[in-house]
């Protein structure tokens, strides 16, 4: 990677916040700050972050609330001084940490535009030059001459973003600003950001929308508990993050491969292997390769039970499932009360990501589902397609209709 200009370098950056102190402690704090001594008893919001942002290679930050994403953005923006480590910045940075920060409620929209641009370092004539552009972007009509306090929150945001479009920095830092505003305005903002990127700009953004991160950023960093948990191609990082998030937010967390044993005299999954791997370990399959699940079902009545096989996202959303009786497959009897099965999915159409293979045992009549065994499945590969599985398709020129 030669000739790639590094715009931001974070080396071993950490940030600690002083914890609540007594009155005397606070005086002590002032004294410590004056002589530049580090503060004791602090809470670490970020530790040992190493990151680089290159020109034209936008970086998205993902992570749960409180993970330290915003603190990291603030450090790069210069609002917060890191407690440890170094931040090297090469180029012009503009930060949009909050839309409409610095707006004054009593001022009209127009007056606030001047205040906000002054905050960004523009002189009055410079602002006047770009005023039409700002007003056109905000598109709030005659409201521009009313005090901001009468605005809806959406209008404030529109104006806030519009103001920030007048500067064209090397790096634009934005913190969740796309989460606000209505659909059409969001699209407008995204379009602007894409223009900005096409014009050689670089974004450093933090968003809970994986879609935005994948769309706007080449790289992504996953911040977890103040540390850099993962860094890489945005697609990979967001995918892993989503999978982790889904697994975490599942109502009843259950580790893959943990077996929910049915009570004594009921059908159960006795054994299961997926591509030869037993539950409890990850099954790794390259995209487009085949997947084979085999195992045995216990049936106390010694009649052929039904097996239900499914593939779901880590977030419990089913992708595909079927039972043996749907295809008229009858499980062969291996031993008394044990029946085997084997199912193959050739050329698995799943897109790269994390999934689960699940096997359920059902009674011979298919009335009830008794048991469940889960097996973690990782599909590897690179793809820019969106979603969970590939659908057969072909492109062609439109057919003229008369």
């Amino acid at each position, binding site marked *: 990677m030669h000739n790639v200009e590094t715009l931001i370098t974070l080396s071993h950056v950490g940030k600690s916040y002083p914890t609540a102190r007594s009155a005397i402690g*606070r005086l002590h704090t002032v004294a410590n700050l004056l002589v530049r001594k580090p503060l004791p008893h602090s809470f670490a919001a970020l530790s040992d972050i190493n990151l680089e942002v290159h020109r034209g290679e936008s970086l998205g930050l993902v992570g749960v609330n409180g993970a330290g994403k915003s603190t990291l953005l603030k450090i790069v923006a210069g609002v917060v001084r890191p407690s440890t480590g170094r931040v090297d910045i090469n180029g012009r940075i503009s930060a949009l940490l909050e839309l409409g920060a610095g707006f004054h409620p009593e001022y009209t929209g127009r007056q606030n535009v001047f205040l906000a641009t002054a905050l960004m370092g523009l002189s009055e004539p410079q602002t006047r030059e770009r005023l039409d552009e700002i007003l056109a972007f905000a598109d709030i009509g005659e409201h521009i001459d009313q005090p901001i306090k009468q605005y809806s929150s959406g209008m404030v945001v529109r104006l806030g973003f519009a103001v920030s479009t007048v500067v064209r920095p090397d790096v634009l830092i934005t913190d969740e600003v796309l989460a606000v505003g209505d659909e059409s305005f969001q699209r407008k903002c995204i379009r602007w950001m894409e223009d900005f990127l096409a014009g050689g700009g670089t974004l450093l953004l933090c968003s809970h929308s994986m879609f935005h991160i994948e769309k706007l950023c080449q790289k992504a960093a996953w911040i977890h508990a103040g540390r850099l948990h993962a860094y890489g191609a945005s697609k990979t990082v967001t995918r892993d993050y989503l999978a982790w998030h889904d697994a975490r937010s599942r109502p009843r967390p259950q580790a893959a491969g943990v077996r929910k044993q049915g009570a004594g005299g009921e059908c159960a999954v006795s054994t299961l292997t997926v591509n030869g791997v037993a539950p409890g370990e990850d099954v790794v399959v390259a995209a487009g390769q085949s997947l084979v699940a085999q195992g045995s079902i216990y049936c106390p009545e010694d009649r052929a039970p039904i097996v239900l096989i499914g593939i779901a996202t880590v977030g419990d959303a089913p992708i595909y499932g079927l039972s043996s009786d749907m295809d008229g497959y009858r499980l062969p009897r291996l031993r008394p009360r044990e029946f085997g099965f084997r199912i193959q999915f050739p050329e698995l159409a799943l897109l790269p990501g994390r999934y689960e293979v699940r096997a359920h045992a059902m009674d011979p009549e298919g009335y009830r589902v008794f048991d469940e065994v889960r097996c973690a499945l990782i599909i590897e590969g690179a793809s820019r397609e969106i979603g969970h599985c590939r659908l057969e398709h072909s492109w062609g020129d439109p057919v003229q209709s008369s």
Partner: protein
Amino acid sequence: MQTLRMIWGRRALLASFVRRDITNRYAGTLIGALWALGQPVLMLLIYGFVFQRVLRVDIQDLGGHGFVSFLAIGLWPWMGFQEGLQRATRSIVQNGALVKKVVFPFELLVLATITATFLVQFFGFLVVLAVLWLLGPPFHAVGLPVMMVAWLVMALFAYGIGLVTASIQVVVRDIEHLIGPVLLLIFYVTPILYPRKLVPESFSFVLDLNPVAHLVGVIRAGLLQGDLSTAWVLAPLLAAALLMVWLGQLVFRRLAESFEDFM
């Protein structure tokens, strides 16, 4: 020098902040900025009534001027200093939302508050001066430039001290409550309500160390008596005020690095 260049570079922002500060004062009032005129006139009426009709205070050697002139000339610069310092102390905490989210030289908030307060009070002073000039014996015009320099020095002192109090206030919120009583104390040990002559010899060293006492004294001597013999003190006072600003900036910048931690 660098500081001046920074301020000049961000003059649009400073002007915005000053304008915001001034319009804020009169926001929601019926007569708006007319209060800048009305308030000093009302206060002057009250002082005139209390001190000339009720208490009948009379002081000799005022160059033919009444006590109200004597008082007003000292009181308005003091009000600029007191109000400026009090408001400057709160300026960073009050603009917390901005300080937490936007990068800019935060000193500008303190400077804007001081500038706005002194502009308003100086305007009030001019109104008071004009009224007294019309109604009473004329002031000495030769005192006017001295008066203006003295106001500037006063503002610089307020700015320097304000930088310190505003930045400490972010960490220790007691400053705001402490500053009121401290200012009241300074007010009474400064000859504003009374002439310097009433102060016993043994205490006069306190006044010698009190820059506000000197500044008020210089303005009074100039305007009331046309006496510029003490005006030279403005030079060392200006130097002291600039030193205070420099010191204030040192403290402020150290603490500013951690403002966000305490907001």
